[in-house]
């Protein structure tokens, strides 16, 4: 069943990319020999064939019936929530700055992983972020996002 879902998903993505590679890579830009869209097109055709192979293989090898629980279960919900946290974090990182945004994200991820002790949940993310900021930003002079407006002032003050 896993293979069937993986194969069908891959096939859909491949078809979508194949339709787009035609538009984006203009064959007119080729001078002589092989044009820019040849290689991705060739690879996508091979990928589509392989995906079909995986789907067919899954029908031959597995008699398991499709169950929605394979996709909609508690573990996958946790994964979706984690992805959402990552998306929100990346969106707000340049607004809030590294020192403010990172501990919040770490707290949520620690809660997701199953850490229940409040002392750890609230202390470790801050300590780790401060240590990393000291190491990268202060010691090695790697610029980290400092945020905008008032957050910039707070970040600069803390760094």
């Amino acid at each position, binding site marked *: 069943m*896993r*293979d069937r879902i*993986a194969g069908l998903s*891959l096939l859909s993505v491949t078809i979508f*990319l194949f339709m787009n*590679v035609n538009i*984006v*890579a*203009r064959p007119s*830009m080729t*001078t*002589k*020999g*092989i*044009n*820019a*869209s040849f*290689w*991705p097109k060739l*690879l*996508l055709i*091979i*990928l589509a064939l*392989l*995906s079909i192979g*995986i789907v067919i*293989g899954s029908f031959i090898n597995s008699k398991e019936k499709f169950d929605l629980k394979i996709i909609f279960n508690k*573990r996958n919900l*946790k*994964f979706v929530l*984690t992805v959402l946290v*990552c*998306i929100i974090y*990346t969106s707000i*990182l*340049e607004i809030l700055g590294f020192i403010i945004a*990172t501990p919040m*994200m*770490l707290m949520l*991820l*620690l809660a*997701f*992983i*199953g*850490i*229940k*002790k409040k002392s*750890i949940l609230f202390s*470790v*993310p801050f300590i780790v*972020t401060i240590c*990393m900021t000291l*190491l*990268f930003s202060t010691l*090695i*002079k*790697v*610029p*980290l*996002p400092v945020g905008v407006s008032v957050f910039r002032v707070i970040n600069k003050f803390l760094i």
Partner: protein
Amino acid sequence: MLTNIITGLSGSFEPYNFMMLLCGVFVGVVFGALPGLTGVMAIALFIPFTYSLDLIPAILFLVGIYNGSVFGGSITAILVKVPGDTGNAATVFDGYAMAQKGEAGKALGIAAVTSSIGGIFASLILLFLAPLLADVAVTFGPAEYFAMAFMGLSAITSLGVNNQLKSITSCIIGLVLACIGMDAITGADRLTFGSPFLQDGIPLVPALIGLFAFSELFKQINDGIQDGEALVKNVSTKLPSLNELWQLRKTIFKSSIIGTWIGILPGAGATLASFLGYTEAVRSSKKPEEFGTGIAEGVAAAETANNAAVGGSFIPTLALGIPGSGSTALLLSALTLHGIRTGPMIFVQQPKMVYTIIIGVLLTNFIFLFMGVWGTRYFGKLLEIPYNILFPTIVTFTIVGSYAVRNNIGDLWLMFGMGVIGYLLLIKGGFPVAPIILGLVLGPLTEMNFRRAYLLNGDLMGIITRPIAGTLILFSIIFLLSPLSKKIISGIKTEKLKEASSVD
């Protein structure tokens, strides 16, 4: 020659010079071990520091950084699945798996010893054969580069012996990802969907961190962990025995040759060397299915090759003035800043300086061997840190490591995106990780050189009929089909045995 070697030895062992070499290796190991901070960045950062130094200590310091950083990247690759640099990506496959089995000490020890052996091998080649090999390297054209990259890709059928269909699919996914960005020959945008960020292509560091480290973090979040529990219990910091190292001799020897040769070729480098070393070890192994499960050969093959490439990259740099890698390009600029012009005449005009550098390259391998072996007991213990502390540290490392390379938030999006792809494909879908990375690394090299060769030679026959390229392509096809032929042969043998037993 002997006089020059003695001069080089005396120059390198002068207390001040040796101290600078030692400091350089230390800085290099630290920078290499920190994800996102590469050897190239370290050299670039420290070049201004060397302005005030004399030529020889300045160059020895930078040489130490370069060699140390390539080794340093293996530490985090083995312990937390975050390769310090792209050159250590292949080390993750077996190094991390060994650490998860509680053999962190053994994996780190093997990485230190084999990196050192690879480096020493390349340094000796540099010492005795530099001008000769540099001349051969310049005869390598796009057709030969393509054939070499194709040879690396041909190992995919050996990499995924348990499920070759998924292994090949993974590799093609890697190759498709490598197509994203502006086409280097025509300038056309490919699969960028109008995004300026994607025009530069997929940057390797965030992609590798996402595929390796963040996909693993997603898995651990889903699996959950108890408060205060360490991820790996009973971590052994025991170093590999001499007998264990002796059993790796063939792998080490082959990877040393591959790494040195890849290093000599301009534009290749430690990443390609480690992948080709690894794939060759898988291909020639009697038990290829064991690779990726945490075996010493995997770590030895990758680590020997990447450090051998460091030594090899000095050959065109010194003998021809053509840098073999990004780091040697910076070293070349440092030499120019000190008024030195490299090229064939440097061996005659500046023998003391050249041989001191070469001996310096050789000595760095002994220095990081000592550092690595000494540090193993401490590095290995890192895994015993409770996971509720280690987990946020790794997450922060992946974030800073991805962001620090170009200070671009887009790299962070890419890292998370690759983490999601990695989790869904590799962990949920059961697709192997090694081929996707192989495709991503070798993709641009394969395509660009194939198209350049096609343009230069006019047609496909023009590529195949070149002696070196043709031979390499022929071997690649044999390698590609060998797992299939083995299956057919074993099938025929089983049939014959069945027939014989039914007659009896």
